[in-house]
């Protein structure tokens, strides 16, 4: 019973995701893209970075990257914490 509810919920959720994705734009033909055009035009000119993706990762959206490094650090800390040795003290 519970399982049926879950499966129905999953299928509804998947259908909703399909519906949302179908309504963005046709694949391969995005409309106006001011932000990406800005990156493509300016990364070489002002930052001398040939690779636009790297210039986004480390400069324009650099704060995301420090968050990402922090996520990796968090994972290391969490795994280190749950596999730690030692038994505490009384």
């Amino acid at each position, binding site marked *: 019973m519970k399982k049926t509810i879950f499966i129905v919920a999953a299928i509804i959720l998947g259908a909703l995701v399909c519906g949302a994705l179908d309504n*963005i734009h046709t694949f391969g033909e995005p409309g106006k893209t001011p932000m990406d055009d800005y990156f493509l035009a300016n990364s070489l000119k002002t930052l001398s970075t040939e690779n636009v993706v790297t210039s986004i990762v480390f400069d324009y959206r650099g704060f995301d990257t420090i968050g990402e490094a*922090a996520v990796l650090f968090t994972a290391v800390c969490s795994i280190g914490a749950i596999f730690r040795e030692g038994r505490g003290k009384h």
Partner: protein
Amino acid sequence: MNWNDHLPALILIIPLFGAFIAPICSLGGKTARNFLLVVISFITLIVAFMLWRHVLANGISYYVMGGDKFNLSLPSGMALPVRIILEVDAFSAFMALCGAIVSFAGALFSVNYMNRFSGMGRFVSLYCLLTTGMLGMMVTGDIFNFFIFIEISSIASFGLIAFWRDKPTAIEASFKYALISQVGSMLILIAAGTLYGKYNMLNMAAIGSVLKMGTMEKLALVFLVGSLAMKCGSFPMHMWLPDAYAEAPTGVTCLLVAVSQASLYGLMRVCYSIYGAAMGSSFIPWMIIVFGLASMFFGVSMAVVQHDIKRLMGYHSVSQVGYMLLGLGVGLLVLDDARAMADYGFTAIKGGVFHIFNYTMYKALLFLTAGAIYYATGKRDLNEMGGLARRMPYTTFMFVIAAAAISGLPPFNGFVSKLLIYESSFAVHPFLAVVALVTSVLTLASFVKVFQTAFLGPEKNSLAKIQEVPAAMLIGMAVLTAAILGASLFPSWTLSTLVEPAARALVDQSGYIGAILGGGM
């Protein structure tokens, strides 16, 4: 260089830096580590307070990460922001202040509470990272950045919930939370991606300025609301919450309360500031209200039958989250109706916002007193306790204050916020107020039971040797008690300085958008 301008960045930089140097600091021994934990959370509290003062005095403050100037939101020749912008209005600053207070109290509590366990270097790192994630969710103005901070806070909480890895229940609770939170995060990422694909921007304010309702936007809103409601512990997906709250170490539980409020903040930011007036239909507000009612009622009805003191409080968290959802949902319902808004809608939002403050303080305090009992007696089952009032007078005193506040007894702050929610939800439909009142009565009954069994009654033989908890833990609890008492003794001051600017900033969608798009040099 004026440090006041950099406050929105500093509030994230400081705990992040603390997390990064914690492994180096823990080479220097126990004292250095504990000192780092307390100092970092204290500086964060100071910065949060200064940020709140700054925002109240100067209006919305924003910070462009990596821009030529920290306030150059629009680069030359662009009508839209391209970089990550942290945007702090009065509501964000209010939430960040609440979160920082709780983080400081939890850190002080943890210093003694976690003293006898191993792996404390990792604990300090994870605690600082959890604080960073929580504060980041509150101050960021970028939807993808919001996702990153959600992930930082969730991954840090998985590790901290499973910190006592020798208890099978802790591992299980952590795994359950990990699964649910991963599905939720992926839905948030899909919603952010769809919004990006359609409008080619990631800034919340900029999206809010151009958003027009269509099929895709409706579905994105449903994903965002559903997953954020799930992460703040609302009804249909609430089952992770009592497990996680009960199994985590207590100092962490106290912070997890604030983290769930950060998810609630995200929900409100999406509904009020991104969608706002463009929302059009009343489907989502009613969905939030129904979620709120259901979590209120089911949460409290599950709570009254619990024996485990921390699980009992966890179920009460589910029920209390319902109050905020109800208050803010009623406000959302009348967002584009100016007369009803002035009539009762703004009262509901004020009640919801005030209840966020109250809930964060008294629920954190309740968890801390439960942790103090656990520290002193080593027990969590209510049936094995009794007569603790004589042995632990300070803890008892603080428990009574928190319990009275959560049950909404008149002089305390819980009463004020609940009253605001009752009277405004009564104007929408009397049934809402009736459910809220019944929940309040059941909460009172439940806490009377806890007080009576744990603190009063005959003393158990097994508990004859216990004594009051150490001073640092008491100070941690006292910080929260002072906040509750302050809000209880000066309700009108609290309402006018703390709550009303936050509520006004939440409603003011055009102000939130205009600060970014109208700014620049």
